[in-house]
């Protein structure tokens, strides 16, 4: 199979730095972006990947060439950058981060003047503009300045988060909290947030932004052994693990066990709906536990194709109060900002613990129990279509959603197959109420491969 280590499309530009994602490509994409948003202020920030500094210069070059005025906020979590864009009335923003991808990857996340992802139609226009290479080329007198504001972005962001919880009540609990920030963009802000803003006794590892990622970037249960051990060793009430750009969160309960991300999202949805009722948006692959939690509040759940931009677009269209993506560990609370935000998730979970007086493990144990199984298959052209067709024939009559691959849903179980947006993989997920049902469902699908 051919290896595609660069991807340019409606999700922006992403690739392996070196021979694939080059400074010229990044600058050209930034210049297309600057042409698209128009002259004015554009915010640039990045995560802690070693390629971040190089790409930051390339992005600034492209933006300045398009006649934009660039404000660099330096190393900041992606949600912090997004909030800053909205707060300062900039024309747009670019976060240089490959989020949960391995360190050799990097990418540009592009934001509009509200600090939000562009909708799918705007993203299409931007990619066309990039391919046409019809950029604005500013003359000397049209070139805007380059300035730095590294100091204020973090406090603007966390201030908005704190307004959504009872911070005094959390502080009064003096929770002992473990943190693994993967030496990422959240390293410094997370320590300040948990220790000073929320009054926690902090036990932190991997909070040096100058060091490489000490574990795989995506905070999956199997790579969070050190955090689990830290929770147990220090008797922490909860453990938090971030990804390199601080938008995703994984949670360890007081036993050191890492919560299923869907359960984490369910607890956050429960916390948010307790504060304020309203619609919920999650992607097609997120657990049905969300439906149960929403139902208990009398609220409706909407489902979208996988991808933060898709979830955000729907949340904005229907004015949802909470949303997210289960598997990704992404929580979106529009009252803070319409973006995936680990800080909002941390605050809501601590708030829920403080409000109920229950441990995170107890809260999780009260959730309805679902069993999920996932497989990923190397993507080969022509593989997904026949699989979807075989599934529809095998399970004729079952409710089918074809908006992102194929999802077949029974009242108590479902199957979802889809192509990954970011990697050459087919993802297969099944869910059922009982473990053996889930295994059985998976076996039935695998038999069709």
């Amino acid at each position, binding site marked *: 199979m051919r290896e595609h280590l660069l991807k340019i499309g409606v999700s922006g530009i992403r690739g*392996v*730095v*070196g*021979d694939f994602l*080059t*400074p*010229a490509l*990044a*600058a*050209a994409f930034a*210049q297309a972006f600057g042409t698209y948003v128009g002259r004015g202020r554009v915010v640039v920030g990045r995560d802690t*990947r*070693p*390629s971040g*500094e*190089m*790409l*930051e*210069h*390339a992005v*600034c*070059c*492209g933006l*300045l*060439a398009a006649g934009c005025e660039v404000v660099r906020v330096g190393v900041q979590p992606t949600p912090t950058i997004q909030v800053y864009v909205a707060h300062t009335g900039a024309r747009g923003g670019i976060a240089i981060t490959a989020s949960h991808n391995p*360190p*050799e*990857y*990097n990418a540009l996340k592009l934001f509009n003047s509200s600090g939000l992802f562009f909708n799918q139609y705007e993203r299409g226009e931007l990619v066309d503009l990039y391919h046409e290479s019809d*950029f604005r*080329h*500013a*003359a*000397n*007198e*049209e*070139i805007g*300045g*380059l300035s730095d504001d590294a100091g204020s972005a973090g406090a603007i962001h966390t201030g908005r988060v704190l307004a959504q919880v009872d911070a005094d009540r959390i502080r009064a609990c003096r929770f002992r909290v473990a943190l693994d920030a993967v030496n990422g963009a959240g390293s410094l802000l997370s320590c300040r947030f948990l220790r000073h803003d929320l009054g926690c006794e902090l036990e932190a590892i991997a909070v040096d932004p100058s060091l*490489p990622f000490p574990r795989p970037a995506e905070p999956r249960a199997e790579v969070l052994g050190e955090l689990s051990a830290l929770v147990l060793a220090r008797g922490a009430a909860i453990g938090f693990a971030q990804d390199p750009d601080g938008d995703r969160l994984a949670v360890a309960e007081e036993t050191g066990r890492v919560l299923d991300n869907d359960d984490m999202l369910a607890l956050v949805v429960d916390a948010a709906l307790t504060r304020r009722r309203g619609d919920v948006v999650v992607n097609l692959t997120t657990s049905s536990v969300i439906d149960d939690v929403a139902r208990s509040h009398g609220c409706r759940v909407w489902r979208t194709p996988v991808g933060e931009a898709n979830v955000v677009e729907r949340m904005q269209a229907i004015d949802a109060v909470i949303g997210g993506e289960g598997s990704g560990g992404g929580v979106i609370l529009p009252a803070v900002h319409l973006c995936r935000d680990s800080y909002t998730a941390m605050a809501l979970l601590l708030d829920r613990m403080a409000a109920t007086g229950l441990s995170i493990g107890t809260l999780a144990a009260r959730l309805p129990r679902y069993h999920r199984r996932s497989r990923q298959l190397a993507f080969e052209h022509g593989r997904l279509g026949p699989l979807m067709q075989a599934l529809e024939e095998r399970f004729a009559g079952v409710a089918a959603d074809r908006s992102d691959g194929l999802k077949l849903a029974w009242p108590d179980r479902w199957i979802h197959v889809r192509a990954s947006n970011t990697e050459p993989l087919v993802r297969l997920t099944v869910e059922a109420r009982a473990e053996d049902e889930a295994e059985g469902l998976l076996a039935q699908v695998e038999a069709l491969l």
Partner: protein
Amino acid sequence: MAAPRSLRISHVGLRGVVGSGLTASHVLDFAAAFGTFLESGGPVVIGRDPRSSGVMIREGVAAALLACGQDVVDLGVVSTPVVQHAIRRLGGAGGVSIGASHNAAEWNALRFFGPEGTYLSTAQAGELLDIYHLGKFRFAPHDGLGKLRAEPDALDRYLEELEAAYDFDALRSFRVVVDCSNGTSSLILRRLNQRRGFGFILINEPVASVRFAHEPTTSAATVALQLAPLVRPLGADAGFLFDADSDRVALATECGEPVSEEMILPLLADYLLPRGSGKLVITNLSTTALVEEVAARHGGRVVRVPVGRQAAIDALSCYRPEQVALAGEGTGAVMMPRFRFVYDGIASMLAILSMRKERGRPLSEILAGYPRYSILKAQVAVHTSGIPALLMELQRDYGDGDINTLDGLRVDWPDRWFHVRVSQTEPVVRVIVEQRGEPPAALFEALLERVRRIA
């Protein structure tokens, strides 16, 4: 007639009108070619002149060099000679100077230097161009990228070198007015005032990013605009004018007379030839014949090369450094061995002031000591297709003189010469005629008439 070009990519680097000619994409690709070309070793030193577009270009150059695994030292807004000085001091692998020197504000350019801050030879520059055109760059893996650091004190270290070369105590007493052309020379001169007790009176001294008070060219005409009228009222001993990145200098006497830009090289030749071992003066075919007369007084010899810095660099490489007294051109750009053959307007100014001190006579008197030469210059936009036939006709019709076809056509008679050549930067033919004594108006007009036939 061809339209004036707004981008030129050549052996001397990259130069163009930002936006309409020179774009971010050119900058990134050319800097990536340079990062690929350089042997790894020390850092790459970069600096820029104050144009707004310099920040955009700096970001692109930094990104491409870092991507090639080169560490970068950014000096900020500094003169080109300061960049070259820092490359040598820091043991750099090379350097990039971002700035369009004597061009108008809407232009910018990138100039590339090797280790020791030297200009690239024609062979090296050719290799760099080949890498650029091939478009295959050697990028480092994500964990092998370079690091960038700023170095704010490069200027002070450069001043230390100037201080080692010149007697500051002797020069401090002069009253000198300087037109900085809103360029980087003001940063150097201000610091000489603050830290070394000089009393330079500066005009057009704010470092400007968009609008210059005048085009930063070092011609007598530019000197006449604002600088020359101030010299006498201020009671100054001299007036100097620099281009935007202060590699060139122009002069006015204590009487407020603008001095022809052609005079800088003969003046410095007269000063330097008796002082060192070098007896060669390297200059181009368009520069005044006074250089030969001055060199002869000191037993020196002039080597004439085609116009353009590259030809001078290649000629320099043919000789041992101690054989050469100086190299330069009639634009006020002069390289001296003491400064490792780097065009340096500030060093040139200090040398002229040192000469003034040593002779103990005003500049106007020193200049009056040279025989009068009259030079006439013009340029004509032409159809380039007619150039070879024009040159052949001229060579036939003026065949009674000494013919030199190294760069267009130069014809010499005992007290008179002309040079008809094609510009490297624009589709124009330049006509230069010089005569010892009165202006050679008739010859000048005859030549212009011939050239205009292919306009």
